[in-house]
C-alpha cells in the first residue's frame, strides 16, 4: 500500500520567498540610500516589470497576443491628466479610477477583437490602440496632438517638496509592481489559475475538461487592461507630461514589453522578472551608443528565440527543475511496509 501527500512549496521556493521579502525591505528604503537618478530608474524598472507581468498573463497564458496594450497605458495616462485637471481628483484617486474606467472600456473592445483569431487578433489590438491615439489627439482641452503638462498645483498636491514627491512616486511604482506580482501569483495559484494554465497548454483539451475558454480569456483581458491603465497613470505621473505619441507608443509600451517577456520566458511567472533585469542591463550599458542599442536588442531577441524558445527562465527551469514561485503541486509517495 502506498500513501501519497500533496504539497506545493519547494525548498527553492521557500528560499526565494525569504530573499524576495528581504529585497523588498531594502527596496522600500531606497529613497534613503539611492540617488535621485537611480530612484527614477528603479521606478521605471518596477513599472516595466508590471507591464511585462500583465502582458505575460494575457499573451503567455491566455493566448491573447496583443500588440496594442499601449491603448490602455495611454488611456490610463490621459485619465490621470483629465481626471485631475477637469475632475479635481487627487492624482492617486485619478489613477485608481482610470483602472476602473479601463476595465469598463475593455469589455466592448474585447467584444470587438475577440472575434479575430491569431495574427488578425494582434492587428486588431493595434488598430484599436491607433483609434485611441487619434481620438485623444482630437481633444484640444488635453493639448490635442502636441499634448499637455500636469499643472504645478496638481503636482504639488502629491507631496511637499521635490524629493518627497520623487520618493512617493518611487513607492507608488514599487507598490504597483508588488501588487501586480502578488495578484498574478495568487491568481495563478488558484483554481482559476490552474484552468488558465491549462488553456496556455491546450485550448482543445481545456475546453473538453470543462473550462469556459471565452469567459476565462475575457476575465484576463479585462483585469490586465485595468492594471495596465493604472501602470500607465503611474508612468505619466513620473513624466508629468503627456502627448498622444508618447502615451500610445507601440515601441515603448508594447515592443519593449514583448522583448522582456520573450527573452525572460513567456508563460512563466519568473520570466518577466529575468527579462526586465536583462532589458535594463542592456539598455543602461548601451545607452551611449544610440541606435546600435536597438539593433543589439533585436539581435539578442533573435538569438534567444532561436536557441531558447522558452526564454532564459525556460532554460534554467528545464535544466534544474527550479520553481521560485510555488505554483506546482508536488506529490510525495511513501511506500508503507516492504
Amino acid at each position, binding site marked *: 500500500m*502506498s500513501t*501519497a501527500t*500533496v504539497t506545493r512549496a519547494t525548498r527553492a521556493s521557500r528560499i526565494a520567498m525569504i530573499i524576495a521579502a528581504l529585497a523588498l525591505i531594502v527596496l522600500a528604503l531606497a529613497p534613503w540610500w539611492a540617488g535621485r537618478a537611480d530612484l527614477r530608474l528603479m521606478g521605471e524598472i518596477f513599472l516595466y516589470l508590471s507591464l511585462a507581468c500583465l502582458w505575460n498573463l494575457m499573451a503567455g497564458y491566455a493566448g491573447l497576443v496583443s500588440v496594442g496594450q499601449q491603448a490602455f497605458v495611454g488611456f490610463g495616462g490621459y485619465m490621470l491628466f483629465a481626471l485631475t485637471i477637469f475632475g479635481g481628483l487627487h492624482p492617486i484617486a485619478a489613477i485608481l479610477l482610470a483602472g476602473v474606467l479601463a476595465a469598463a472600456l475593455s469589455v466592448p473592445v474585447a467584444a470587438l477583437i475577440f472575434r479575430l483569431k491569431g495574427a488578425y487578433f494582434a492587428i486588431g489590438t493595434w488598430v484599436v490602440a491607433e483609434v485611441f491615439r487619434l481620438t485623444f489627439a482630437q481633444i484640444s482641452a488635453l493639448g490635442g496632438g502636441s499634448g499637455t503638462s500636469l499643472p504645478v498645483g496638481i503636482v504639488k498636491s502629491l507631496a511637499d517638496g521635490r524629493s518627497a514627491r520623487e520618493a512617493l512616486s518611487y513607492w507608488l511604482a514599487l507598490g504597483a509592481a508588488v501588487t501586480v506580482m502578488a495578484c498574478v501569483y495568487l491568481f495563478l495559484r488558484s*483554481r482559476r489559475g*490552474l*484552468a488558465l*494554465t*491549462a488553456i*496556455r*497548454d*491546450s485550448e*482543445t*483539451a*481545456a*475546453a*473538453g*475538461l*470543462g*473550462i*469556459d*475558454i471565452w469567459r476565462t480569456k475575457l476575465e484576463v483581458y479585462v483585469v490586465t487592461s485595468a492594471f495596465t491603465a493604472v501602470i500607465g497613470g503611474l508612468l505619466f505621473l513620473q513624466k508629468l507630461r503627456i502627448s498622444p505619441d508618447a502615451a500610445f507608443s507601440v515601441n515603448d509600451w508594447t515592443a519593449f514589453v514583448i522583448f522582456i517577456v520573450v527573452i525572460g520566458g513567456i*508563460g512563466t511567472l519568473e520570466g518577466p522578472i529575468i527579462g526586465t533585469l536583462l532589458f535594463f542591463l542592456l539598455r543602461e550599458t548601451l545607452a551611449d551608443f544610440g541606435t546600435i542599442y536597438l539593433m543589439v536588442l533585436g539581435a539578442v531577441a533573435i538569438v534567444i528565440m532561436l536557441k531558447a524558445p522558452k526564454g532564459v527562465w525556460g532554460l534554467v527551469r528545464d535544466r534544474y527543475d527550479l520553481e521560485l514561485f510555488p505554483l*506546482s*503541486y*508536488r*506529490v510525495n*509517495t511513501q511506500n508503507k511496509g516492504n
Partner: protein
Amino acid sequence: MPALLSISGLHKSFGAVVVADGTSFEVAEGEAVGILGPNGAGKTSLFNLITGALPPDAGTITFGGQDISATGAAQRCKMGIARSFQVPQPFGGMTVFENALVGAMEGAGLRGAEAEAHVLSVLDDTGLLLKANVRAGTLTLLERKRLEMARALAARPRLLLLDEIAGGLTEAECTALIETIQRVHAGGTTIIWIEHVVHALLAVVERLIVIDFGKKIAEGPPKTIMDSAQVKEIYLGVDPDV
C-alpha cells in the same frame, strides 16, 4: 433503461468529406458500446460532435434527456461527458498530477483536498502515480495516452468516450488496461470506445456500432456484428482474435 445519450440524424461534412451522414443511435445508462470502422470513417469526428468540439451541420444530440446540440464543450463536460483524445493533447507544461487535477476541479467540480484525493486515486488506478510529478510534455506516447484516460476519469464522467487507447501496448499492459476499463464500467460509468484492437474492445463492450464513410452500417451484439459479411469485408485481413 432510459437512453443516456441519444443521437438522431447527425450530419457533418468538411467540404466533400462526409464524416457524419444521418447518424442515429442510442446508448443506455451503464452500457459499454464499441465503435469500429476503417481509417477516416468519421469515428473521432463523431466524438468531436458528441463533446461539442465540432458543431453539427444538422441533427440533434440529447444527453440525460436534455438537448445539448447547441451546448458548449465545457458545459457538456460539466454535465458528465469526458473524452480521451486519439492524438494526445496533454497540458505539456503541467505535471501529470496537475493535468488530472484540471479534470477533477473543472469537470467534476471538486475542490481542495477532495479533488487531490480523487486525482491520486485515479492516477493509482491508471498506473500513473509514480509519474505524478513529471511534466506531461516529457511523457512517451503510451504514457500520454494513459494520461488522456486519467484526465477524463478525473472529471468523474457519466459518459466516458475513449478514442484508440489500446494500440501499441504489450500483452500485459493491454490486460491491465482492460481491467481498468472494466472496473470503471462496473462502477456505473457509461462507455463508448473506439478501438482498432478488437480483442480488447470485445472484452469490455456489450454492443458494437460500425461506421463507414460517416454512415452507421451495422449495430448489434458483438458476436453478430463480427460475424456479419459487411464487417468482414471492411475488416478484411483484420483478425478479431477472440
